[in-house]
């Protein structure tokens, strides 16, 4: 409500982001303001239209437990406090228009011809706070959610017990509208379950159930509450107190998740069978109602927003932050911050903290008016650029501007310096500052200038693999001394040419190593590493070089042990490589001089002079 009234906040409700261009400090966002068919400035929320509307459809806010009209307000505290017309349900959308709402509206706020509007806003920073979706338990049929009326979700329970709910706060079960006396809560429905692809804890369900049991104990002291759980995770401030209070008030906590629920067709009561792992026996309970404590899932919108702002996702499908400890509210794309559930499941308190931090960071950036970037950005040589656009297509940050027939241009404020473009450019037109091709090749030649056959040549990414080596060193793990590391910011900086150069210089084994997929510090740049490796294995095989001599490993900064195991395996592999093989690869992979297209040169010269 405060946000809606704030003079310096423009609140665009019922709107969707269509397109995003630009970069930190200069984002241009196209927003679709959906047609409301009711002018919010004229509507005084008198409700006359609602009373007259003849259409009745399930009310989404009440979880479908009651109905709403085609013209409606989503919930009483909605901002703006105005009605909206759901045109898909409205009879006015048919050839014979109903028009009942427009007839009674004294304010003349209803406009059936309203259209979606595209508006553009220029913003310096963006905070993604797109929230969550609730897990749909229909796929877990063992709990009978689709078969038994008295099996409901925790969200439905919330509406049933709320004074603003469909029953006006009179708690009743759906089958007979009687007040349930024995209620069972089943935890971890859609959470901590790898079988359905949701291995993560949803964070909020345990305490929500504890709260619900306390609510029931206070309002209806004669109800018998049972909670079936794997673990109760009450780790927040005062949460343990609440849990203990719930137990003191009589809620019975049974460690074990029910395997099956059956319904008595006459009474609609539910028979729950559970293995009580504390008592070590199978128990059966007859309950009036079962509440499935459903987990949370990433918002449906997440994928779309992720593509618009080039954000990356964790294995669980939530947004990935720049660094889990040091930059927990920064998205990998500069100028974008994350708040709330979209980053990971968290309760209200944590969401408020994160939102405050994101707002502070965004404010600090806007106030400073300038940003500092590390001097490791890419530079495109316009004379060498052949306008192919490959660099723009592989940049995970969309930091390269290119249009057909135009020389590509790096937006330095958006470039994070992964070097992927430099490795992908087939014309050597891109230089990555401080990690140039010439510098890296010089390191390769220098390392392999003496006793190359005794060395395992390793390209290690700055953030994970190289740090994994450090971890191994700090822990004083023992591993072969034959490896020689060249550090690049990302494994995607390693071009095909660099790997081939190492073989040409006599490397028996070349290892390219980087961050695990979910840890990639450059959104998803290391997927390009995989593509490059596939090409290289084909190329080596074609040249008669054993492709196994080129290896790929993902090693995180914490995986010192994995670094050691990898180095041991590389050393074993090195010992299988014969001097003849090394000699053959040095000859077979010799770079061929590039053919010059003499006819095209004058045209090129003209183009560069005109620039």
């Amino acid at each position: 409500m405060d946000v809606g009234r704030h003079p310096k906040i423009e609140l665009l409700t019922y709107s969707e982001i269509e397109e995003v261009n630009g970069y930190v400090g200069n984002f241009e966002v196209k927003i679709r303001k959906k047609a409301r068919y009711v002018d919010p400035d004229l509507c005084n929320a008198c409700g006359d239209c609602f009373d007259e509307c003849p259409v009745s459809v399930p009310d989404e806010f009440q979880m479908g437990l009651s109905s709403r009209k085609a013209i409606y307000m989503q919930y009483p505290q909605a901002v703006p406090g105005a009605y909206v017309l759901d045109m898909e349900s409205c009879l006015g959308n048919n050839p014979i228009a109903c028009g009942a709402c427009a007839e009674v509206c004294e304010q003349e706020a209803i406009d059936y011809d309203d259209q979606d509007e595209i508006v553009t806003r220029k913003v310096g920073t963006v905070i993604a706070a797109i929230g969550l979706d609730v897990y749909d338990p229909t796929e877990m049929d063992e709990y009978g959610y689709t078969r038994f009326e008295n099996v409901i979700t925790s969200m439905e329970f919330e509406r049933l017990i709320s004074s603003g709910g469909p029953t006006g706060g009179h708690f009743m079960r759906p089958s007979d509208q009687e007040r349930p006396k024995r209620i069972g809560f089943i935890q971890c429905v859609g959470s901590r379950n790898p079988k359905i692809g949701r291995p993560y804890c949803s964070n909020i369900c345990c305490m929500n159930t504890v709260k619900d049991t306390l609510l029931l104990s206070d309002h209806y002291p004669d109800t018998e509450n049972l909670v079936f759980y794997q673990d109760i995770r009450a780790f927040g401030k005062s949460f343990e107190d609440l849990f203990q209070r719930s137990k003191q008030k009589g809620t019975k906590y049974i460690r074990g998740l029910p395997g099956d629920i059956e319904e008595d067709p006459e009474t609609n009561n539910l028979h729950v069978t559970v293995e009580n792992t504390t008592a070590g026996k199978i128990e059966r309970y007859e309950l009036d109602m079962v509440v499935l404590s459903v987990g949370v899932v990433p918002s449906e919108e997440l994928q779309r927003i992720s593509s618009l702002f080039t954000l990356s996702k964790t294995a669980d499908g939530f947004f990935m932050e720049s660094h889990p400890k040091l930059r927990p509210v920064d998205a990998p794309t500069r100028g974008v911050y994350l708040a709330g559930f979209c980053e990971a499941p968290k309760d209200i308190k944590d969401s408020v903290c994160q939102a405050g931090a994101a707002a502070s960071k965004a404010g600090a950036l806007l106030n400073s008016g300038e940003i500092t970037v590390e001097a490791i950005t890419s530079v495109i040589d316009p004379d060498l650029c052949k306008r192919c656009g490959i660099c723009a297509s592989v940049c995970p940050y969309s930091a390269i501007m290119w249009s057909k027939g135009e020389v590509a241009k790096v937006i330095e404020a958006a470039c994070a310096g992964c070097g992927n473009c430099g490795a992908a450019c087939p014309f050597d037109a891109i230089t990555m500052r401080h990690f140039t091709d010439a510098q890296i090749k010089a390191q390769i030649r220098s390392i392999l200038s003496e006793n190359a056959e005794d060395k395992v040549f390793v390209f290690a990414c700055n953030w994970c693999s190289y740090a994994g080596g450090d971890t191994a060193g700090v822990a004083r793990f023992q591993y072969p001394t034959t490896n020689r590391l060249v550090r690049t910011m990302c494994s995607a900086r390693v071009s095909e040419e660099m790997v081939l150069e190492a073989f040409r210089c006599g490397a028996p084994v070349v290892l390219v190593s980087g961050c695990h997929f979910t840890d990639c510090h450059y959104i998803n740049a290391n997927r390009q590493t995989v593509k490059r490796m596939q090409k290289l294995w084909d190329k080596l095989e074609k040249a008669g070089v054993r492709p196994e001599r080129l290896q790929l490993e993902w090693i995180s900064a914490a995986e010192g042990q994995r670094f050691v195991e990898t180095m041991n395996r590389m050393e074993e592999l090195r010992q299988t490589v014969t001097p003849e093989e090394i000699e053959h690869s040095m000859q077979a992979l010799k770079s061929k001089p590039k053919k010059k297209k003499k006819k095209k040169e004058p045209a090129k010269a003209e183009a560069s002079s005109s620039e």
Partner: protein
Amino acid sequence: MAKKTIETFRCMMCGHEYQEPVEEGEDREWMCPKCRSNSIRHIKKKGDKKKS
């Protein structure tokens, strides 16, 4: 629903060859089920390149 195909992979570390269902647009790390190496070569069937 994303299209699933059975793809062949070869571990460049231990030589283990195996098949796995792969979903279109899938984004996950490949790892040898035998030796846990990430050096996994995707063995494309003949004609795959033409189709793509």
